[in-house]
């Protein structure tokens, strides 16, 4: 029992998310607005928040490396959306070429920021504030102040479609995929535990091992069930899963990730340990540019348009998600999982309040308060621990 309490304490953010979801569900049920966990709404939450999750993952790497942030991502999303629109809609360009050009452009913009921040050592706040204005301006120039739409269906299907194509197959296929995922997960964690025990490595207690596994399986089955009862698995969810798993692996398991944490934790120590800190910081911004481009492609597909105001305020959502997810504003601390949960947290707040019909201005206020509260609780709980 103590172990479970301890684990809940360590995963307090996840717990808070569950509590908030339950509270919303009760409020929504009582007020007769249906349910937050209707299959339709569940799919909505995923597609509504996909871009925030992608941006938050990129932002997290900037924050870990020395507490830098990138204010320009919203403007980059607008600019790259505009470029995509000009190529695909105005000039009937090849879809794949358009995607490649957009991703490359994102990388170049990231390199532009990274150069000033990592090699010339201009504070990231200033560089990306300038970038925010520069790229918003260029986006407006490219669009000439107009909105471009609609996008070709062969482009949209890569981001807004569902697997399978026909709704009739949705239930069977989704169920099968869910069961396979559950099986793979369970086998993988059991194998990992057994091989660790064999080598006499440290393992967590059996109770917490089972508890953790039960939660993940429950979440997988639950989401699988909801998706199965709607149109199946959204393509965007597959893309998100790949991105999140890849970056979680990068942060946790690779030399690059380890060095980035060391850079954020103590730059001088990292340098004296042979870490090329400048290059690492540069790469964090190149990566941010790349993921901004991915988010831009997702956004234009979702709205089926490239608008001058696209991406407004996205940078704040992404930064907020990282901080709610436990990243430190001074760098060196933060996890991909935390950033994703932070993004989902904000998404659930948006979605729940929208269903309840709460005024948009109030929604903003509440989100701000939640961000502050999350960080205050984090800081206070750490103080008490000492």
């Amino acid at each position, binding site marked *: 029992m103590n172990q479970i309490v301890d684990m809940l304490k360590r995963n307090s953010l996840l717990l808070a998310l569950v509590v908030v979801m339950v509270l919303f569900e009760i409020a929504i049920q009582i007020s007769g607005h249906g349910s937050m966990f209707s299959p339709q709404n569940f799919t909505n939450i995923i597609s509504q928040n996909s871009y925030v999750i992608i941006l938050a993952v990129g932002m997290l790497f900037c924050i870990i490396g020395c507490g830098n942030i990138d204010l320009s991502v919203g403007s980059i999303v607008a600019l790259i959306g505009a470029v995509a629109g000009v190529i695909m809609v105005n000039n009937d360009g090849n879809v794949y070429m358009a995607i490649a050009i957009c991703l490359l452009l994102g990388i170049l913009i990231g390199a532009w920021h990274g150069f000033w921040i990592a090699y010339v050592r201009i504070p990231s706040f200033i560089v990306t504030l300038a970038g925010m204005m520069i790229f918003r301006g260029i986006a407006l120039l490219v669009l000439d102040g107009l909105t471009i739409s609609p996008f070709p269906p062969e482009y949209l299907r890569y981001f807004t479609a569902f697997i399978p194509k026909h709704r009739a197959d949705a239930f069977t296929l989704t169920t099968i995929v869910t069961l396979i995922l559950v099986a793979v997960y369970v086998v993988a964690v059991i194998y990992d535990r057994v091989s660790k025990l064999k080598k006499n490595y440290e393992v967590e207690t059996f109770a917490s091992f089972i508890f953790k596994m039960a939660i993940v399986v429950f979440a997988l089955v639950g989401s699988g069930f909801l998706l199965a009862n709607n149109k199946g698995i959204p393509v965007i969810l597959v893309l998100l899963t790949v991105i999140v798993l890849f970056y979680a692996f990068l942060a946790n398991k690779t030399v690059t990730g380890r060095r980035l944490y*060391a850079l954020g934790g103590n730059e*001088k120590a990292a340098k004296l340990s042979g870490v090329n800190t400048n290059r690492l910081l540069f790469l964090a911004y190149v990566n941010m540019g790349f993921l901004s481009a991915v988010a831009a492609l997702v956004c234009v597909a979702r709205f089926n348009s490239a608008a001058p105001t696209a991406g407004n305020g996205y940078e704040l959502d992404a930064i907020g998600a990282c901080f709610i997810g436990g990243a430190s504003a001074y760098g060196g601390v933060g996890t991909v999982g935390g950033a994703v949960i932070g993004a989902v947290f904000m998404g659930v707040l948006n979605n729940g309040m929208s269903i309840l019909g709460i005024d948009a201005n109030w929604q903003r206020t509440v989100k701000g308060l939640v961000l502050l509260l999350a960080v205050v609780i984090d800081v206070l709980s750490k103080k008490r621990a000492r």
Partner: protein
Amino acid sequence: MSNTAALLEMKNITKRFGKVTALSNVNLEVKQGEVHALVGENGAGKSTLMNVLSGIYPHGSYEGDIVFDGEICHFKNIKDSEEKGIVIIHQELALVPYLSIAENMFLGNERTLKNSNNIMDWPRTYQRARELMDLVGLDEDPRTLIKDIGVGKQQLVEIAKAISKNVRLMILDEPTASLNENDSQKLLELIDRFRKEGMTSIIISHKLNEISYIANSITVIRDGSTIETLDNNNHNVSEDRIISGMVGRALTDRYPKRQSKISDEILLDVKDWCVSHPLNPSRLVNDHVSLNIHRGEVVGLAGLMGAGRTEFAKSLFGKSYGVNIHGDVTFKGKKCQFNTVQQAIDEGLAYVTEDRKGDGLVLMNPIAKNMTLANLEKISSRSVIDKDKEMVIANGLKVDLNVKCASVSQDVGNLSGGNQQKVLLAKWMFAEPDVLILDEPTRGIDVGAKYEIYCLINKLVEQGKGVLVISSELPEVLGLCDRIYVMNEGRIVAEMPRKDASQEVIMSAILRNSGKKKTTNSEE
């Protein structure tokens, strides 16, 4: 001196930090109108004593009495002592670079308009600043920014600031450490002039020639105790006399014995190493430094703080410090150039920093992650880290080095200084170097942990590595090293085998060479 009334008496001051006794029954008596010098090695307790006097360590945290002007004082903070007229001018000047001379002079003590205590009275500020600057002989516009004047003049600003507070006892901590000869001379003359006008001052300095020249009395502190107070009114106390007071201590077996297995093979040979200061390239921080380390040898690099030893180590270690670095390096028999830290590590050089919190450890990361940071290649394949392997290695190092912690997943920041130092050492042992440069490896750690670190050093050289120990503690250098280089003001001034070395020899090598070199420093 005819005036013999004591202005300040510190009686039986004892100050403990946990189990460590920093000061034990220290007595200091400063007479009205004299310049009193306080001398002792680094770590002897001079600064601690001054911190007790100024209230940085408040009344109640130490034992003993401070009697100032005939009355027992209970200072709770610096403000209390300043109200009595006791002002300390620290070695690290506490001036704001982007404020003007006048603004700095009255910082915290601003001249305001008559009917207000918040609106600055600029004419009066500048007027008063002018008067004070004339008093200390500082010829500048009071509107000049602090960053635009040299260190010597900044020192004068500090003194003017002290005078503006109606100072009765002025304490100068290493006032001439960063000054060139000319500025030092001017400063000493100024202190002497103030003395004639009746000011009392305490001066802490390593430059014994200056002390014999200016001080009326000299108190020697060693190992946290007062050794003696010498009368120097006739300026007849010799430097040798002061040195023997400072270092006269018998060496006990605080240093583990080892079988010397020095081979003829030279692991690291550095010739004519020159490094310039990064912000002031005309200033040489290392001036044609040459030294070598044999396989299986512990070499000491002795000197005072600021002698250029850390700068030598850092500039050698992948050019981590300084500009215009040049010199010949032969490493394990072949010519070498370490252009990056990674290259130096790959070749087999390790630098264990003196500042373990500032640039040694990532305090918010666990012990295990700190131990492997300099050699992640060894625990990873194709850039993917094997965390289980990491845990095994970290646990092994923890046992080998006797790191006292609950688990290697614990954050390094929560460990004691001695254990942090062991983690830092473990990190560099895991990098598998051939030569280790240990910069102040036992600074601020207790005697027991020190002994363990010495044992580890012995183990390293038994394995055939070469170790360079940079230390400001002479007993440590003497107890530990096979051969000793002495560095002063960026140059190697002496080299001696252990059998010829003693504290007196080293101290005189340092002190006799102090201030002899004309600095290329272009401060006016």
